[in-house]
């Protein structure tokens, strides 16, 4: 029986190892051929031109800006929602909002993309008088909503875990409830909240489908109201017809994305470890 447990455990580990090896092995050749600096910092991506260019800086920056924008919008909304659920809302209201948030997490990304495409993109075009609403901005809005559930639920758990004695001490010193939340509860829950934010970053940077449907997928350097391509969508939109060096370069993009995700996971691991150390 122990062998079965062991084998099941090994499946996960083996998958990680195999995927990592595969990504590195298949991602390196193109980088070697193109040159690391030209690949990472080249501003032009023309994979199918007669004289192809493989600079992925536009994708990297788009992914960073897109994720940053989503965090900028999503974190305040998510954190305040978590505060509302944990400290402010009457139980009956919280019991309606909480499942709604969980449901939001369960919606497939293609549905986000679809609604973004049909509703959001035209609305962006109309509001900002653009010829075309597919843009970094539309992608940021969609991503901001997609990362809400992880930020909300992780932050709420962290806020619920703040010992009530801290809050009592603050109230007994003459703090109002709001002062207590912002000066005691949130700081006491900050490592949990940070974990939620990092999870959100991971989700945003790895998202492909929804982004592909609203971002326009042109290899522009990122601008808020221009069509852009993310690291994820750069791979997925060309993979079906790519060949040769172009195909290899797509693997290299995936490797870069993979490294980003790894870094985020390491950061998350550090935060959670430190949190454990506090107790």
């Amino acid at each position, binding site marked *: 029986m122990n062998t079965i447990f062991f084998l099941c455990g090994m499946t996960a580990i083996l998958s990680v190892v195999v995927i990592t090896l595969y990504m590195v092995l298949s991602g390196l050749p193109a980088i070697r051929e193109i040159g690391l600096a030209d690949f990472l910092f080249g501003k032009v991506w023309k994979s199918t031109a007669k004289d192809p260019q493989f600079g992925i800086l536009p994708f990297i920056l788009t992914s960073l800006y897109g994720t940053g924008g989503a965090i900028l919008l999503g974190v305040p909304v998510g954190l305040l929602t978590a505060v509302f659920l944990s400290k402010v809302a009457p139980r009956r209201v919280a019991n309606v909002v909480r499942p709604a948030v969980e449901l939001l997490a369960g919606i497939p990304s293609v549905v986000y993309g679809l609604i973004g495409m049909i509703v959001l993109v035209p609305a962006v075009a109309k509001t900002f008088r653009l010829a075309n609403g597919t843009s970094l901005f539309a992608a940021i809005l969609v991503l901001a909503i997609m990362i809400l559930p992880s930020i909300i639920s992780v932050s709420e758990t962290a806020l619920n875990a703040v*010992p009530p*004695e*801290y809050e*009592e*001490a*603050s*109230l*007994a*010193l*003459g*703090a*109002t409830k709001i*002062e207590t939340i912002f*000066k*005691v509860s949130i*700081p*006491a829950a900050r490592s949990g909240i940070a974990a939620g934010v990092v999870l959100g970053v991971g989700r945003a940077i790895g998202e492909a489908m929804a982004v592909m449907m609203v971002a326009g997928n042109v290899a522009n350097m990122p601008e808020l109201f221009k069509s852009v391509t993310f690291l994820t969508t750069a791979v997925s939109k060309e993979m079906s017809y790519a060949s040769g060096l172009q195909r290899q370069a797509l693997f290299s993009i995936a490797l870069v994305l993979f490294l980003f995700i790894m870094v985020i996971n390491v950061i998350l691991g550090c935060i959670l470890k430190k949190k454990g150390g*506090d107790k």
Partner: protein
Amino acid sequence: MDIITTNNLELWYGSFQALKGIDMKIPEHQITAFIGPSGCGKSTFLKTLNRMNDLVPGVKITGEILYHGQDIYAPEVDVTWLRKRVGMVFQKPNPFPMSIYDNIAYGPRLHGTHSKAELNDLVEQSLRGAALWDEVKDRLKKSALGLSGGQQQRMCIARALSVQPDVLLMDEPTSALDPISTMKIEELMSDLKQQYTVVIVTHNMQQAARISDRTAFFLLGEMVEFDETERMFSMPSDKRTEDYITGRFG
């Protein structure tokens, strides 16, 4: 001179009546102790004095509590003002997960003191007031969670003093502490009464006898007897008080 007076104070948790018709006059610059068995209402009563019971859902309070003649449950009373004037120390030491300095400066900052010099003064003054300054003056920027239990509790007293209250409510402040820390806090209380009015709930009758000027005995939500401590412990006027302090129940 009485600083707090209660008239026919009654309190319900839902349909359970936790306090029954309490009339009490708490004298200024004295230590008043509340004793009684668990569940007798002494802590509940203490928490009505700074309205910490407001936080409990389903609480209903009738009667009046006058603080310097002002009814603290009157609608125009600002609870944050009241809690600043009537400070509280809890059963379990509850320092914030911040530095010692920030713990003490928390209250003053809240109430609008931001000048560094003023804060430094207040922190020192408060820690001296709680007889903790000499022990922590070299590690003010270190986390308060690194202090021992007894030091944490004195830090909580210092934190309560930092907003310059005139009443200090203490809810079994030594029940989580070892005998030496307990002794230090008891000594401290005698000093505190020069400047503050101290009201303490205690499980420990010897503690009440040692430190308090007046003692109130609570039983099942009633205040059975309230008298000078010496008198109460030598010749209680109520049979139930006598049974309790001689250890026949409780």
